């Protein structure tokens, strides 16, 4: 790669440190203009940090960036870069045309109007019809297109697409990729960062696989296939020897404990039949927009659904006692105004931490906190420090412990190890395994194959709101094979809708 021409972006030894964690660890990358360059990687691999670096939202700890052979600091030359997010970050109250000019209004004192050049760009991008509509009333696809048009108008050179099509329909995302190709053909630098391997294979000339803050390989030509990418994403990374952890019995033989039938939600999935047995950890895997996340939430009673839901055959259960849902982001599970101890107890009530008069049982609370800290391996100097002072991994343990303290029969977790270091990750997997082994049902929503491999007994791939056949994890000795199968099932789901 050293012979790369001076045009484009060259990144050398890019390193970013957040406290004690290395988000990027000497990353090298060359991106040429005229191609769509893909970036793939598991959660926490450093993809989003890379986007923030190139987008100038943060500056690197060390390393160098050059643009067309010149030293380049994106933090200063921010207007050369445009980041197109899944959720456009614009002004929903202004019209599309006003959004085009916002920030470049010029010196006039009047209400700013788009210039001729702006109008041409908007026409070329098919924004003519919605020009005078408030942006907030336009479809997501139109909003994204407005964001691109804005960047084109300010003559940005570099376009970063960060999971741009996860909320778009098939037709809309096809349209988006056409737009991306046009940008690339006009000599701009286009990066696509996505979890959807199919999109990377179909649209990119080259795809870099990022893992642990480094580029682990760049695939192009013949080697660039979904299976190839899936393998690259998981090789070497399987540090745990999970099969030993797995439940010894074939859970499918046990009677189902938790069951849904004909389970449908208006926008996410339809007619899902699903069951899980005692002691089982079931993984639902699917990319954003596949319906997997919504399915998990619906089991927690957080999405309006139709269909039948039952526990060992009974439908009238005290659901709030029966199940606990742990969201993916800690911002949705932890209370920043609470200490570690208070967070551990936040889901409890009468009789665990208060008597019938609602008076808190302080002694019991302290003992319970002490016990939870030990049982759930929370590393904290003491129970009374603010929750934010813990490391991400320990915060996550607190978030899960908070739910486990209620001893729910059905534990629902969304990406339980997102943004968590490898050590805490293993501890969390052990916690979940131990918990399931006490005769509970654990259902996990994952976006990473590796996580499925490490934690689950069986898995379902969700695509376009449909459940795949059941994958039994003990059939897989190698994570690569699992990755390939999951990639195939995801493709299959895609193909079904395309037909």
């Amino acid at each position, binding site marked *: 790669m050293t012979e790369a021409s001076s045009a484009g972006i060259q990144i050398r030894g890019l390193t970013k440190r957040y406290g004690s964690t290395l988000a990027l660890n000497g990353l090298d990358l060359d991106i040429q203009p005229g191609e769509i360059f893909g970036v793939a990687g598991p959660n926490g691999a450093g993809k989003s940090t890379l986007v923030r670096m190139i987008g100038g939202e943060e500056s690197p700890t060390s390393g160098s960036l050059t643009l067309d052979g010149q030293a380049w600091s994106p933090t200063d030359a921010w207007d050369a870069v445009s980041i197109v997010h899944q959720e456009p970050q614009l002004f929903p109250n202004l019209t599309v045309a006003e959004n085009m000019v916002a920030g470049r209004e010029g010196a006039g004192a009047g209400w700013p109007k788009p210039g001729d050049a702006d109008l041409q760009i908007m026409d070329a991008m098919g924004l003519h019809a919605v020009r005078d509509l408030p942006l907030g009333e336009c479809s997501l696809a139109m909003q994204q297109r407005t964001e691109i048009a804005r960047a084109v108008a300010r003559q940005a050179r570099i376009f970063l697409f960060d999971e741009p099509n996860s909320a778009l329909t098939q037709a809309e995302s096809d349209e988006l990729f056409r737009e991306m190709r046009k940008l690339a053909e006009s000599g701009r630098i286009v990066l696509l960062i996505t979890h959807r391997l199919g999109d990377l294979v179909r649209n990119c000339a080259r795809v870099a696989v990022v893992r642990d803050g480094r580029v682990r390989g760049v695939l192009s030509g013949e080697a660039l296939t979904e299976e190839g990418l899936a393998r690259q994403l998981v090789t070497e990374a399987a540090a745990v020897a999970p099969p030993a952890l797995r439940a010894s019995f074939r859970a499918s033989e046990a009677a189902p404990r938790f069951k849904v039938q004909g389970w449908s939600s208006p926008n996410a999935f339809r007619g899902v039949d699903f069951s899980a047995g005692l002691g089982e950890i079931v993984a639902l895997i699917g990319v954003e927009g596949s319906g997997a996340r919504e399915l998990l939430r619906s089991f927690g009673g957080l999405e309006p659904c139709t269909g039948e839901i039952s526990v060992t055959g009974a439908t009238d259960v005290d659901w709030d006692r029966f199940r606990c849902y742990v*969201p993916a982001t800690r911002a949705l599970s932890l209370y920043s*105004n609470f200490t570690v101890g208070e967070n551990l107890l936040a889901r409890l009530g009468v009789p665990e931490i*208060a008597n019938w008069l609602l008076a808190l049982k302080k002694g019991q609370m302290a003992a319970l906190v002490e016990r939870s800290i030990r049982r759930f391996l929370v590393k904290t100097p003491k129970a009374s420090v603010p929750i934010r002072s813990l490391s991400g991994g320990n915060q996550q343990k607190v978030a899960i412990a908070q739910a486990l303290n209620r001893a729910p029969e059905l534990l629902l977790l969304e990406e339980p190890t997102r943004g968590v270091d490898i050590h805490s990750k293993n501890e969390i997997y052990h916690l979940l395994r131990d918990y399931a082994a006490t005769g509970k049902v654990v259902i996990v929503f994952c976006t990473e194959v590796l996580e499925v491999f490490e934690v689950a007994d069986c898995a379902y791939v969700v695509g376009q709101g449909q459940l795949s056949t059941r994958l039994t994890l003990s059939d897989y000795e190698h994570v690569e094979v699992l990755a390939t199968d999951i990639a195939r099932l995801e493709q299959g789901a895609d193909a079904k809708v395309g037909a």
Partner: protein
Amino acid sequence: MSSDLTQTPNFAKFGRATVDIAARIGGLFAAVIVVAGVFLLINPHFANLNLAVSILRTMSSVAIMAMGLTLVIVVGEIDLSFGAMYGLAANVLAVMWVVHGVPVYVAIPLTLVIAALVGSFNGFLATSWKIPSFIVTLGSYNLLYGLSLWVSNSGTFNPNYPPSGTDLPQGQLDFFIGLTASFGKYQLSAEVFWMLGIALVVGFLLHRSLFGFRLMAIGGNTEAARLARLPVRRYKISAFIVCSILAGMAGILDFSFIQTSQPDIGLSQTFPVFAAVIIGGASLNGGKGTIIGTIGGALLLAELQLGLALLSPGPHVQQIFLGAVTIVAVGLDLFLAKLRKSLK
């Protein structure tokens, strides 16, 4: 004033969060003492227990309302209507009892029931209809004031001089005035004991009960509480109800002490009560606030108010101080929090 405390190893067995709150309240009461010191320097005659007693009386009704407001602010909502509720309570009681002769023993509970209804109204609209509580209670502020004008027919009432035709039994009158009777050498009003008693109850509710624990959780992260299936709606409505009832009680007690009701009483209390809560360390973002802090805030304000009134530089000075103290207290808070962070 608090940054050095957190560095002291003696405090290591308490968490930083506990130390933060202790330092905040310590700072507040230090400010109360400093202000007293300044007044004494200006005028040594202020060293007078009568004055201290009257500060306590003045702060009572503000503190009672502020405690209710603290609950609402802790749960992450806002109530602007308590001042109007205070006025409505006094006026409704006056009309029921003084004008229509309903026995005071019945009229007082009825008034408190009305207060509870007002609280449920605020809470219901803010949670079920999802109207921001700022808007709901801005509306009910005006609504309640309107009701006060209506029921009182814009008149003032004094139970000692009931309108001709009604005759208030002396026993009822004694009972009512006895609610806030002053006694002892320094004429300490019973209203102060009401304040302390309510502080114990509300303090228990907020700091020692599951109710308060969950109010803190809901105020700290409403979405997390909802996802964890805590009864968010019920708790928010309860906070509004307690706030309204306490405002009603404050109105009744002040009516008993002043013995005159006017349709617009209480309205001007709205912002001093807010100031007391904010100075006391509650955060408008929710999830943070203490009863002892709120009482300290009310004490500091009453002290300034009375001291400045006696120095009589003019009413504008009190008002300017109220504003300045509120801003400085919160500004200092943020500054010290930042300082602590940078020292860590």
